[in-house]
């Protein structure tokens, strides 16, 4: 089984974020592995561990794929230290500021060239927060889309993947046949910390670098443009009281004032 895990390096969610020329300033903030992608890496590890592991020369491999600047290799390295076998970084100036359409095109090209069986993603990146890339990859590959999985079962011999997901309409059971794109929610597992052994081993693993030309695709430019971005007026400071037994009445008064009751 060939598993691909798509990851993204993002500005640290705790860092203060700014816009520069209508785009998020990614240069001057700490960059970290998108924390929702750690669940995808962990789930890939659990899937191979349930079916004999991913040791060198074995039947299963996990490849981490990321599109981003050179330093995104740090995030790939972290995934390798959690146990993935190798990485692919697609790095090209033409991809700076790429939107979801371009991102999904690049990732799906790498995935189809690598003939992966199972593609695992997080549900969203904490910076762009669109949650559309996994569905777009499935669309481009013309393959099954099993997103927002809170449980995943893989049957490698039957080439089948089944998931459970919680949606607006209830709890759904779904399945699909290889190749399958899965996205996993953060309830699915508890990502492992890289062990010392894992960190040492990761240093010897290979990260292959590709660009738009080596992928053989063309990038058609932007699909949307930012007209402007502006700071909104700060929220007016609220009224904070300490309960002296009358807080209930004061809440009622607040609701009346806001015409909510």
């Amino acid at each position, binding site marked *: 089984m060939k598993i691909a895990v798509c990851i993204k390096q993002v500005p640290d*969610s*705790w860092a203060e974020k700014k*816009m520069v020329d209508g785009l998020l300033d990614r240069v001057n903030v700490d960059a970290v592995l998108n924390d929702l992608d750690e669940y995808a890496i962990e789930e890939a590890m659990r899937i191979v561990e349930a079916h004999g592991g991913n040791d060198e020369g074995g039947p299963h491999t996990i490849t981490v794929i990321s599109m981003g600047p050179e330093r995104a290799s740090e995030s790939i390295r972290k995934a390798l230290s959690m146990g993935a076998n190798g990485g692919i970084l697609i790095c090209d100036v033409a991809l700076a500021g790429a939107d*979801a*359409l371009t991102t*999904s095109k690049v990732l799906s090209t790498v995935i189809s060239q690598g003939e992966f069986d199972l593609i695992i993603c997080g*549900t969203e990146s904490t910076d762009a*927060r*669109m*949650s*559309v890339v*996994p*569905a*777009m990859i*499935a*669309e481009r590959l*013309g*393959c099954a*889309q099993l*997103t927002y999985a*809170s449980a995943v079962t893989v049957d490698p011999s039957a080439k089948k993947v089944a998931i459970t997901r*919680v949606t*607006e*309409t*209830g*709890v*759904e*059971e*779904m*399945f*699909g*046949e290889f190749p*399958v794109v899965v996205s996993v929610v953060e*309830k699915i597992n508890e990502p492992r910390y890289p062990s010392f052994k894992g960190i040492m081993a990761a240093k010897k693993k290979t990260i292959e670098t590709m660009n738009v030309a080596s992928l053989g695709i063309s990038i058609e*430019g*932007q*699909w*949307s*443009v*930012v*007209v402007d*971005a*502006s*700071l*909104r007026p*700060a929220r*007016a400071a609220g009224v*904070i*009281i300490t*309960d002296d037994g009358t*807080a*209930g*009445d004061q*809440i*009622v008064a*607040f*609701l009346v004032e*806001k015409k*909510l*009751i």
Partner: protein
Amino acid sequence: MSNVLILADFIGAKLSRTTAELATAAARIAEVTAVVLAPVGKGSEYAAAVSHGPITNILVVESDSFTTHGVAASADVLNQIITTKAPRAVLIASHAFGKEVAGRVAVKSNSGIITDAVDISADLIATQLVFGGSTAVHSKISHGVPIITVRPNSITPDLREVHPIIETLIMEIGESAKKSVVTSVQPPEEGGRPELTEADIVVSGGRGTNGDFTAVEAFADSLGAAVGASRAATDAGWYPHSHQVGQTGKTVSPQLYVACGISGAIQHRAGMQTSKAILVINKDPEAPIFEIADFGVVGDLFSVLPKATEGINARKA
């Protein structure tokens, strides 16, 4: 005829209020056609539900694939309609399902996509709020048919009653849209409370409830509100995951959000920060949630909430 398509938003078999909001935004741009995707035999019933909001036409497509193949089947049909009707834009509700349909349609129709818009102007400039609502970004689509998802509860709906012209379309769903198969759906328990993302008021409980949501629910019921929860509360199994508010839960934008025993972690705020008013009840005066409160009470939720509930119920009597 120039028109804007909206995807009528059904949660299960129930039309959501977001549909009228989509229509209201769409009507600023051009005449509105609502697309209704229904199970076989349910087309006219579903279409009849689309009776409020500035909608002139309804296109109905019936197929059981919408239930069995979900997002992919809906996107396939919507794209076929886009190809034949050449709309000015397509507006879809911004929830997990709506965004995925939009994403797939954008790929199919080679069009730009904007998600989580909170407003759209007549010339198709979309407003999004980023960085916890502190920054407004205006953008527009420069390629293809603009595909825009609109956050529920962001646009004040024009709820006029309408009798749109209904047309039924027969469409084949492509094989590649049938690759994922839903084998069972267990509907959530009907609580009688409004849906989280649609509710005017959301009352949420966190770790501070210590697993006892009685006071939170009673307060919510006195206000006709939906009940939400922090991840600490859903992880502990105190409240269903489907009620989680936040980055990995639902994004809500009600008239009033009430946070009870919730500290206000960045991931929680990501799902509620654009609420119009925020009321906080927390024991710890240092809790970061107070930074975004319009009205905050430093106190014990178990004594404050019942008194507030009593006060509200007394006013109704």
